[in-house]
């Protein structure tokens, strides 16, 4: 009943999402109207019921469970047809459209994305989205902004960056017919979303979420800035040992490969090589 009481917002949302509400609504219909219900409710329910009366009066939609209880005796002949939920579908939808609203979170999908306000305005992350199609990139940037809102990140954008146009001109056929050529192009569209004042871990979570739900035909590129306190040098000294320890494994990979290692010096190598001939090319001939 509470759903029915504040209905107007739904009108704009369109009827696509109506079926979601239908089950609740039908259950509420089955209750007999009580005196306790607020005054707004009564006209709305009764108008809905009237539709039912009309339809069943025509004989097209015989109704059993819904109408008689609600109608308080207006309907005289409840007939026992088993296919009632199907028959009433359209009527229910029509009756519902003005009287119920969607949950707020679902409504938000139809409205512009919500945003958080940045407190300090420090940029933390730049996300660039690229695609060849406007629809995809627009859709996904919208998605990214909504995700940022629900993660509590203040996002600005999407800023449309200049398009990247690549063009190629190729001859239509053989070299002889160079005069007849054809042009092709590929236009890359870009959108920039900037996150401000975000906690670095939250930003990482946001990026991971976007990667998980990556949209087809949309590429992503993120620049992340990290901020540190003013005494950077001290912090570096503190973390230095740890970093070295963590890098030990990696450093072990550097240097020469085992199988190519040799102890000879460079000059030795050059001396001993097969190329070194003390004789001049013609000395053989001369000795003969």
């Amino acid at each position, binding site marked *: 009943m509470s759903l029915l009481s504040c209905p107007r917002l739904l009108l704009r949302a369109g009827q696509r999402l109506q079926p979601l509400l239908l089950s609740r609504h039908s259950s509420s219909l089955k209750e007999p109207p009580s005196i306790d219900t607020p005054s707004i409710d009564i006209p709305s329910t009764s108008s809905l019921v009237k539709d039912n009366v009309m339809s069943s009066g025509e004989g097209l939609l015989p109704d059993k469970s819904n109408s008689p209880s609600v109608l308080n005796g207006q309907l005289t002949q409840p007939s026992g047809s088993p296919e009632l939920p199907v028959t009433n579908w359209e009527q229910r939808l029509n009756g519902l459209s003005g009287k119920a609203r969607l949950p707020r979170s679902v409504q938000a999908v139809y409205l512009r994305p919500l945003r958080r306000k940045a407190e300090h305005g420090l940029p933390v992350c730049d996300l660039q989205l690229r695609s060849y199609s406007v629809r995809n990139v627009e859709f996904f940037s919208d998605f990214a902004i909504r995700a940022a809102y629900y993660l509590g990140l203040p996002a600005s954008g999407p800023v449309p960056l200049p398009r990247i146009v690549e063009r190629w001109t*190729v001859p239509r*056929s053989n070299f002889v017919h160079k005069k007849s050529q054809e*042009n092709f192009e590929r236009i890359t569209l870009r959108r920039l979303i900037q996150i401000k004042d975000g906690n670095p871990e939250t930003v990482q979570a946001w990026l991971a979420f976007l990667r998980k739900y990556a949209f087809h035909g949309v590429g992503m590129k993120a620049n992340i800035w990290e901020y540190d306190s003013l005494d950077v040098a001290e912090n570096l000294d503190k973390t230095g040992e740890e970093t070295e320890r963590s890098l030990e494994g990696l450093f072990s990979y550097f240097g020469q490969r085992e199988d190519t290692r040799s102890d000879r010096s460079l000059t030795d190598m*050059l*001396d001993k090589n097969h190329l070194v001939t003390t004789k001049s090319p013609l000395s053989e001939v001369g000795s003969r």
Partner: protein
Amino acid sequence: MSMFRSKKLDLGGFVNGKIIRDHTKRKVFEQHEAERQALRYVIRNTSLPQRARAQAQLQLATMHAYTRSTQIKNRCVAGGTARFIIRDFRLGRFQFREQALAGELPGVRKASW
């Protein structure tokens, strides 16, 4: 050269003799790249003895032609032609046109301006 060519075909897609040859050259170049660079370094380093530098020069000159990067030539992956290869797609001009018109290259369409 046959000594460098792999015994089993190690290429997919469109294959012909020239493509196999080019592929072999790429592999040989990759194997010997470090050696070449070392020799080039020795040749140019004026602090090394002149003798060593001259020897390095000779060695570099005697290395096989396949170890040179200049031997590598881009070829169309769909047709094997060596001219007018569009680098973004690694296709020759005609293969590019055919595939673009067929809509197989994402984002590419006929331009008019």
